[in-house]
């Protein structure tokens, strides 16, 4: 007799670059926790290399990046590439914060799956993740 599996969505939240504005990412972290997810914080001033290493060690399903100080057109594609190179290509990469509309096609082409800009409702983020997680589990069970 085997114990019942108890899969739980794991999300890494990180801030790339030098900005220290943590309010948004903290609020999102708590919203995800309230939705029953495990949220791993990595702290401030992270480089793409540090985030990729943490995402692999923690074996998260989702990597969420908060970026408010520009640099995202350089940092996010690099993170997406590092994740692919290190065996984390199946992880869902999300970005949020100050990301101009004109940068979004570039980021999505580079492997950022979804971008939540300023003013996004945490409930929408939770719903997006729950739906993605349900679909992922269904496809793995099939």
């Amino acid at each position, binding site marked *: 007799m085997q114990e019942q599996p108890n899969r739980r969505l794991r999300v890494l939240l990180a801030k790339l670059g030098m900005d220290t504005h943590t309010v948004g990412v903290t609020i999102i*972290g708590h919203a995800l926790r309230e939705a*029953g997810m*495990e949220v791993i914080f990595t702290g401030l001033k992270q480089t793409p290399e540090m985030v990729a290493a943490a995402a692999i060690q923690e074996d998260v399903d989702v990597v969420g990046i908060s970026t408010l100080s520009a640099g995202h057109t350089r940092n996010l594609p690099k993170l997406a590439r590092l994740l692919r190179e290190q065996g984390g290509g199946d992880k869902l990469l999300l970005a949020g914060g100050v990301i101009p509309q004109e940068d979004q096609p570039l980021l999505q082409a580079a492997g950022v799956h979804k971008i939540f800009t300023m003013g996004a409702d945490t409930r929408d983020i939770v719903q997006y993740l729950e739906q993605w997680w349900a679909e992922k589990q269904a496809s793995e069970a099939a």
Partner: protein
Amino acid sequence: MNDIAQGVLDGVVAAGARAIRWLDDRDPRGADLVRRIFPATGRAQIVGVTGPPGAGKSTLTDMLVTELRSRDLRVGVIAVDPSSPFTGGAILGDRVRMARHALDPGVFIRSLGTRGQAGGLSRSTHDACLVLDAMGYDIVIVETVGVGQDEIDVVNLAHTTIIVGVPGLGDEVQAVKAGLMEAGEIFVINKADRDGYQATQRQYELMLHLREQAAVARDAGWSAPLLRAVATSGEGGKAIADAIFAHRAALEARDGFARRSGLREREQTLAILRERLIARALGAQGQAVLAEAEARRIDPYTAAGKLLAQIDGKDDLA
């Protein structure tokens, strides 16, 4: 499956991370995985770090990792934080204090939520230690959730348990109550640059003195040192690391290292057995018995007897 187990044995980080995920999620593949890697375990020294919330366990762990790396040891860290008993969600933030080791290939840090387990650890913590052991990490540091007075499961898991205290928390009565004082092998007063350090130090000294007199400590051949630390500045790291190795040497001198590893496997066997027995007893019919108890139509002893009888293959009261 074979790839993941082989990857663990080869020390591949992504494979080890996935193995821990399976075991934490109770994935059916986990049991076979442990079977494969188990022969390669038993080498790493498991070091518990425990203490009340806010004692600085994560920062102290970070300092210890730095010290152990300077001695060319590979270090695994399992950092446990509480899961919400209501939603099951968790904020796992211990990595924040260990960010400087993020890119060191000799360090593997994993955060775990307690997922409903009391006692300061997750049910999967033992399994995660086996994985890191099999991957070849020399020392595995297990940082518990902030604990109160009796959440000391870590002492059954670790070869060496470090109790971290801070000045100004509680009075003598608190220290007397604490099961923590009976359990640890190394005592550290962190934030020792703060007011109240000397009073706290005197309390700890008294407690440790009484403990030695009463010989309640598990290892009669080991006298628990009381060390001071200021983890944010790195003060005390060397002395703590020295004490960790001294304790290992003391254990090995009396064959205690392997014995402690064995006690750990014994505890884990019983834990797995409990879970599986409960799962078997609570089949479809078992749920009905449980509902009877919940409705207060039968008492808990009768209900448990009926559930046990189901495992025994009988159909009525045991």
